[in-house]
């Protein structure tokens, strides 16, 4: 019994409600947003330290005993992800005031921002399959509103697609929960896991597992269900794209991790073998997409898909190294994707176009911007001093140990192509003559660089301080491989 577990959900929720009252006063909204996001980061940091010291926090809401009430569980994995979510939210909160949102700030941008954070942290914390669905809807509703905010023609077009695919997969999610409730008679994840274990995942349970995977794969944009993602992620304001790219797909990855390390772990040769294939195909097709375009925003959006592939590959291989790598990669990718979306937002803003063929020579005007992009390209590809390296190294180690050589080779080649796709922005956009873009106006990037530096500094810390962070991800992986610990912490007598 500790109300600490609910604070990361309640704090942004309260912030959102308060901000609805102040929607027309932009100055107060901005100030409150910064204050609340910093408070959220402080709470998340405290929760993280508490979990690291004292182990899993569980909260039985409304004092109802374990399998009967709604249980909130903050274990090490959730705590890490909440902390990362709040780091991203702080960066976006500080960027938002300078992002050129204009009138949109008055139309409930900040409340929706915090509702999105509420949904994401709620999905990370809940210990209940139906509550996971509810929090998915909370974050999706907020994302529908954010994607269409402003009402441009392209935004309307892309939001229709986004809404339809997510509505469909949500309906499928409810159906899958209905099936699982029909078979095992509970929706508490710990108890489902116990009961699935008792019958060793026989009969229809594997079908339900695939149904759930299909649902989460749609949310996480895996092959072949990623076609909705790239275009719908580039149409809103960069700060909204950054939130989406950093958080939304990762909730899908988290759900796959949770469900397939806790509940459906008895037929690995069917489920997890399948994930490796899906992961490989996601990497190949995602990176092909990133190479095929000259739109810098689209390049970054397509790069989400191979990254998701890496994470799912770790879950598919299912040994300690690979899972540990998967978690390391998940955390660093949330941060670097947010940084990259914000970066290309600034680049498109200063260059006045997001088409690479019309750019060039930006390094003469904006050197800081150029080098930040250079660093984030290296982080993304996994060059040693940065954080991308550790995650990929662990994943490859896991793949070689598990004997999955093909996926390891695909992952390596994909890394190279990812580097090429992002460094292309640097080469084409920043190199070249000073006057490649005619009539380039010097625009102020005040307030936009700070949040990006803030985010990228975490990737450097995560890379250089791997000695310190690796034991955390390793212990999480060890914990994930033994569902008994989770079940005991929730259903203790």
């Amino acid at each position, binding site marked *: *019994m500790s*109300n600490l577990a*609910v604070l990361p959900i*309640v704090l942004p*929720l*309260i912030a959102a*409600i308060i901000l*609805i*009252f102040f929607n027309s006063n932009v100055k107060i909204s901005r100030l409150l947003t910064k204050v609340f996001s910093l408070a959220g980061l402080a709470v998340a940091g405290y929760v993280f330290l508490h979990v690291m010291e004292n182990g899993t926090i569980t*909260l*039985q*809401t*409304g*004092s109802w005993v374990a399998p009967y009430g709604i249980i*909130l569980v903050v274990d090490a994995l959730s705590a890490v992800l909440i902390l990362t979510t709040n780091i991203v939210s702080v960066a976006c909160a500080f960027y938002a005031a300078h992002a050129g949102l204009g009138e949109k700030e008055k139309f409930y941008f900040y409340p929706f921002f915090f509702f999105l954070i509420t949904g994401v942290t709620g999905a990370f914390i809940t210990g209940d399959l139906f509550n996971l669905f509810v929090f998915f809807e909370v974050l999706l509703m907020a994302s529908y509103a954010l994607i269409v905010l402003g009402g441009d023609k392209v935004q309307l077009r892309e939001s229709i697609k986004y809404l339809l695919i997510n509505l469909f997969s949500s309906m499928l999610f409810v159906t899958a929960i209905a099936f699982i409730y029909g078979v095992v008679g509970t929706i508490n994840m710990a108890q489902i896991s116990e009961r699935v274990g008792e019958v060793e995942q026989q009969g229809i349970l594997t079908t339900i597992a695939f149904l759930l995977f299909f649902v989460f794969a749609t949310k996480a944009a895996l092959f072949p269900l990623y076609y909705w993602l790239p275009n719908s992620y580039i149409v809103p304001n960069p700060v909204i794209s950054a939130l989406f790219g950093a958080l939304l797909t990762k909730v899908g990855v988290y759900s796959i991790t949770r469900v397939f390390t806790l509940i459906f772990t008895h037929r690995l040769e069917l489920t997890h073998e399948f994930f490796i294939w899906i992961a490989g195909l996601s990497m190949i097709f995602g990176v092909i997409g990133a190479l095929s375009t000259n739109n810098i925003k689209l390049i970054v959006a397509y790069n989400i898909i191979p990254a998701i592939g890496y994470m799912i590959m770790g879950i598919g291989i299912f040994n300690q190294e690979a899972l540990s790598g998967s978690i390391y990669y998940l955390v660093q990718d949330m941060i670097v994707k947010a940084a990259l979306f914000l970066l290309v937002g600034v680049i498109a803003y200063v260059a006045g176009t997001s088409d690479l063929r019309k750019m060039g020579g930006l390094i003469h005007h904006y050197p800081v911007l150029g080098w930040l992009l250079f660093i984030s390209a290296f982080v993304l590809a996994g060059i040693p001093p940065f954080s991308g390296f550790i995650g990929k190294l662990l994943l490859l180690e896991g793949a070689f140990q598990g004997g999955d050589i093909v996926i390891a080779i695909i992952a390596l080649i994909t890394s190279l192509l990812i580097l090429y796709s992002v460094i292309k922005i640097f080469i084409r956009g920043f190199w070249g003559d000073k006057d490649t873009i005619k009539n380039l106006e010097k625009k102020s990037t005040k307030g936009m660089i700070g949040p990006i530096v803030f985010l990228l500094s975490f990737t450097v810390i995560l890379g250089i301080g791997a000695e310190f962070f690796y034991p955390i991800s390793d212990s999480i992986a060890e914990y994930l491989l033994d569902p008994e610990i989770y079940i005991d912490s929730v259903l203790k007598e």
Partner: protein
Amino acid sequence: MIRPNNLILRTTTSLIAFLLLGFSIYSFFAGHNAPGGGFIGGLMTAGAILLLYMSYGIETVDEMLPINYTTLISSGLAIAVGTGVGSFIFGAPFLSHTFGYFHFPIFGEVELATAMLFDLGVYLTVVGVVMTIILTIANDQE
């Protein structure tokens, strides 16, 4: 344009709208022990207000009920979250509810539960959401 004389509609509306309001409040309070509750109560209240809008026109009812429905949504949310967070003060887990028996002059002994405050939040949010949706579409000029 000559406005049709809708005397019958208006007279019956003033009767039916208040019957509806009364029934919606009844079902809101009945929610604990009988079918009903904040959601259905809020929907029916919104139905009653909507009936007034349909028969009297937007300008008249706006004057009659000067309510900002967007604020109603956030107030409802604040009340619902407040009842959840309120349990922090008593050291109980989030969303813990309590109840007690109280004696009132006319009603006699009544069971009062804090769950009703949560329901009140739901009620206000539902009224606010439904009215915001309908009035936004109705006021759309383009």
